[in-house]
């Protein structure tokens, strides 16, 4: 494990980020348990995680679900003229069912993931994005459960 010196993280913070991405302790006082493993107090674990969350390095302490557990989701892409990208990105963002939305280097330059309660709602959202943006939305739903989530080992 190599620590990036530019981030200004302590060894403890680095370990919190790196060593607890899997197997969060399922015990009544999990942060105390993590503290034990790191040789620090529960309070310090909570403070550090709070800090890492506030500075954006930690998205959350929580779960990643198997795709399709609740609702229906798809990856989608649109080709937007560069000068119109900001506007279309905001249209896409306006749906709370959109959880990722990135500009990518390609003719298809806006890529987002929509997860909705039902197939009908999913299609409704994509239809609205298409009509408000004026661009065709391509839909790339996941097939079966072919999904490997390996966490984010930091080397």
């Amino acid at each position: 494990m190599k620590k990036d010196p530019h981030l200004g993280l302590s060894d403890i913070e680095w370990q919190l980020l790196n060593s607890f991405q899997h197997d969060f302790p399922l015990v009544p006082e999990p942060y105390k348990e993590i503290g034990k493993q790191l040789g620090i107090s529960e309070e310090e674990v909570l403070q550090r995680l709070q800090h890492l969350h506030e500075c954006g390095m930690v998205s959350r302490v929580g779960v990643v679900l198997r795709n399709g557990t609740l609702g229906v989701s798809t990856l989608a892409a649109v080709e937007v003229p560069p000068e119109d990208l900001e506007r279309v990105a905001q249209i896409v963002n306006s749906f709370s069912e959109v959880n990722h939305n990135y500009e990518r280097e390609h003719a298809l330059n806006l890529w987002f993931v929509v997860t909705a309660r039902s197939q009908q709602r999913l299609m409704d959202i994509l239809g609205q994005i298409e009509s408000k943006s004026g661009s065709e939305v391509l839909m790339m739903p996941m097939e079966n459960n072919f999904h490997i989530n390996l966490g984010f080992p930091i080397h």
Partner: protein
Amino acid sequence: MSMQIVSDKESDLIEAIQSGFPLTARPFHDIGKLIGQSESEVIATLKNLQERGVIKRMGVIVRHRELGFKANAMVVWNVPDELVAEKGKLIGDMDFVNLCYLRARVLPRWPYNLYCMIHGRQRDEVLNNIVKLESYCGMEDIAKEILFSQRRFKQQGAHYFSPKSNQPQTMK
């Protein structure tokens, strides 16, 4: 497409933790209080969901960009259907691949079906890793495209349903 693979009780719990566990001394107790379940019930349900593979991973979920991994490529290949399972398994051996998906093609515009996310500190590092991956997995001759990310407009955990007013205030 949507299958009922979780019970109502499990679904209540999943909704309550969709934006993360509270950063409190007894997070499972606090979540349980919001949805009328005991601490031990919450823990048992989470364990069970993990064992069934509904929960794929539980713990600290990081944001790669903020950790200095600013080069993020989505790599897509057009892998013949009969080779997909084999290639996907091999890709799983690569420690720099964070996610790997099989997705529907959108013909004729988009012939690609296998997707990988590869993050690195520098673009060169990511490109080198893609070369390594293709050589290890025998994918040098398969058509592909590399799409580096530019602006991030949104990144959040999946919110399957509109937030309810009684959602736990996670992360304070």
